[in-house]
């Protein structure tokens, strides 16, 4: 198991988890969100391959289009 910081809170994940696995855990679709891992953007096309590491700082940012 690995532990990451997800939006500032501890989240435990199985080893070899990728970004897309986070959406399964969260029950989210993963659409219309931006993902930042250790200050670097992970674009949608890379989310199924981007492996998360123990201690990663992960931010899932909802699109907010209102004004």
């Amino acid at each position, binding site marked *: 198991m690995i532990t990451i910081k997800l*939006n*500032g809170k501890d989240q435990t994940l199985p080893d070899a988890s990728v970004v897309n696995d986070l959406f399964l855990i969260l029950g989210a679709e993963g*659409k*219309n969100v*931006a993902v*930042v891992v250790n*200050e*670097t*953007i992970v*674009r*949608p096309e890379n989310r199924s391959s981007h492996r998360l590491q123990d201690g990663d700082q992960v*931010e899932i*940012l*909802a*699109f*907010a*289009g*209102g*004004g």
Partner: protein
Amino acid sequence: MPLTDQQRQRYGRHLALPEIGEKGQEKLLQARALVVGVGGLGSPAAFYLAAAGVGHIGLRDGDAFELSNLQRQIVHTTGSIGRQKVESAADRLRELDRAIELTLYPFRLTEANAPDILALYDFVIDATDNFESKFLIARACHAAGKPYSHAGIRQFYGQTMTVHPGKTACYRCVFHEDGVPATAAPAGPIGALPGVLGSIQAIEAIKCILAIGIPLVNRLLTFDALAMETRIVSVRRDPLCPLCGRR
């Protein structure tokens, strides 16, 4: 131009701040800011820019004011219903200060008209209410090399980030455009939420004009009103960004 006695009184609280002072106030009076969207975010942003003495403010909005807007778009009044938002906002800002120069654009910003409009301004406030406009502003400001403040809101949540195109992470670095609906679902928001975010945008504009403090660049500020929690999410420029990437 040196300040008049009236201006020294009006901006006395600014003059008392070492970061602003007379020189800074003169700079503000000569500055030009464009507020794109005069709704929830644009109301407080334009209001505070005018109150701060930003000498020339452009207001861009193609919509007419509706009754349901009153819940959050505080630059307008009940008498604004049915009027063009830029006209209604301009009247209110003139009541605040007749000396502020205003230019009104009662139409949508487009790829075609954006370059000529943006060329006239030092700073752009993205206070629009849809993704299509937000991505357009990101592209147009990148092309024109104009700094801008992005903000977006939904329900009880808001986010904001300042961008110096070509130098700091841009809106398009963080938010991918493909598959995103052009319009945001009209979910809420709670009325005071755009007040918080729009006020931050005004502060960022003033800081940028005066070159003071640390701009909100390479950092997205998120605000969760239900949890009453703000977070600063650091983001680096994406070298593969379709807009500002270096490929």
